[in-house]
């Protein structure tokens, strides 16, 4: 009897974890389905090449917002990736040092900081003193968001590199920094690339830090010292407008944004898998 009961318990627990796993993916599935239903009809070639029409009018595209998002993500990456990866390497190498412990703690705090707070901060220090909203300020705000994300994943990935590999390089007469740069960084690279792409995907969809920095722009601009359009901002402004066509545009923009994030995630997957990395033999 007790054997039966154990089996029944086991089946029940396993079904519950299955159910939890299914529910975990449910929000994403619902969002995707809804976006496809509402937005797919508006996705046409012109959506990627045309400028937005004045709110309330039909047609038009989001060319400026798509390019704007790419520029913002580019600026953020130029700032966030080198600093984040460098800081992550430092944390991994100097694990117990007081400064490392402090940096690790602070980057965890920064990670948990609401992005709207970061946006206000960026406005105070990057927008106001320089007399206006700009793509540069937006990119810097997004870059600041990236730094703690990249720092922590880089640290984790470098820690996964076996000590024996580091010792092997040191025993061959490699200096500490050369060991870090060649062996340790190279071995951890697939994981670091994945972490970087996940961070990029994450900031590509951020709206709050951009509200006070990049501001958004109805016109074509690729200049770093002008306000610039961005997909999340465009979606936001269309979504709060009272017109049905604008709402449809917002859905379509959201679909494009999700597609961009999805593509980045897929690249991240591929980057991890195609190289020989940790774990497997």
């Amino acid at each position, binding site marked *: 009897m007790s054997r039966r009961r154990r089996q029944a318990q086991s089946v029940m627990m396993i079904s519950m974890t299955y159910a939890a796993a299914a529910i975990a993916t449910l929000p994403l599935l619902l969002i995707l389905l809804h976006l496809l239903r509402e937005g797919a009809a508006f996705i046409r070639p012109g959506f990627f090449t045309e400028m937005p029409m004045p709110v309330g009018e039909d047609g038009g595209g989001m060319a400026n917002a798509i390019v704007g998002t790419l520029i913002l993500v580019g600026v953020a990456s130029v700032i966030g990736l080198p600093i984040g990866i460098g800081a992550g390497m430092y944390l991994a190498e100097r694990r*117990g040092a007081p400064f490392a412990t402090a940096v690790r703690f602070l980057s965890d705090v920064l990670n948990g900081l609401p992005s709207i707070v970061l946006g206000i901060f960026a406005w105070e220090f990057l927008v106001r003193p320089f007399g206006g909203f700009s793509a540069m300020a937006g990119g810097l705000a997004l870059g600041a968001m990236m730094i703690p994300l990249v720092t922590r994943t880089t640290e984790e990935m470098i820690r996964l590199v*076996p000590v*024996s*590999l*580091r*010792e*092997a*390089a*040191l*025993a*061959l*007469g*490699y*200096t500490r920094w*050369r060991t870090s740069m060649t*062996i340790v960084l*190279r*071995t951890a690279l697939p994981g670091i690339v994945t972490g970087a792409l996940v961070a990029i995907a994450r900031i590509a969809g951020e709206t709050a830090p951009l509200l006070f920095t990049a501001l958004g722009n109805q016109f074509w601009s690729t200049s770093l010292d002008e306000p610039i359009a961005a997909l999340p901002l465009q979606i936001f402004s269309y979504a709060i407008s009272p017109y049905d066509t604008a709402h449809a545009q917002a859905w379509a923009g959201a679909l494009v944004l999700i597609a961009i994030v999805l593509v980045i995630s897929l690249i991240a997957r591929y980057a991890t898998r195609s190289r*020989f*990395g940790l774990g497997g*033999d």
Partner: protein
Amino acid sequence: MSASVARTDASSAPGVAAAVEARKFSFWYGEKQALFDIELSIPSNGITALIGPSGCGKSTFLRSVNRMNETLTDIRREGDMLLHGKDIYGSGVDVVDLRSRVGMVFQRSNPFPKSIYANTAYGPRINRGLRGRALDEVVEVSLRRAALWDEVKDRLGTNALGLSGGQQQRLCIARALANEPEVLLLDEPASALDPVATQRIEELLFELKSQLTIVIVTHNLQQAGRLSDRTAFFYLGRLVEVGPTDVMFTRPREERTEAYITGRFG
């Protein structure tokens, strides 16, 4: 006591060149003293085996010869460690240069996740700046010396992690040899290998010993007996006895040595 043993040992007599010589060498991990006043002289060429129960300090001693212990924090040492008569802890000594002269092979094979060629070329490429043909040559010679060439010559570009455990360990030996070291330190190099792979490593070391000073830490007493010319027995951080291997295994001076070798403790 241990000091007097080392001094009466014939090979440390003046005039005989010692490849490695420890003089009252002591070592601490934090508060814990791991080595006590080690007096040990390792002659050029030939194989010296360091034996003793776990935690006796033999690996610590080995890792003091190429200063690998310095990668840890909170360590301290006293006394001298000489490499061909020069103190390796001296102020003018470049640790990077030292480690290219004193190669090391670890307990678990640790090839880089790169090609067989890249693994072997690692040292000479940086330490001697070799490129192209000259580098190819060093790679081939090193792989031949490590008795691996015939097995890998057709797949030098493939990932070293695809090799078997024994091959990986021989690759690690080839990688160390490519630096043309004066001394090769091996820390239980065969303990994770099957008997066949172990035998290949032993044959290889036997081949190398005429050109190279080899110091091997081993838990396998038969291995020490088969392989080494001289054996040093460590116990609780002290060097109990050192001498020619056949003497150590048949009529050791110290009772503790005999007890360990005959399996009564350890």
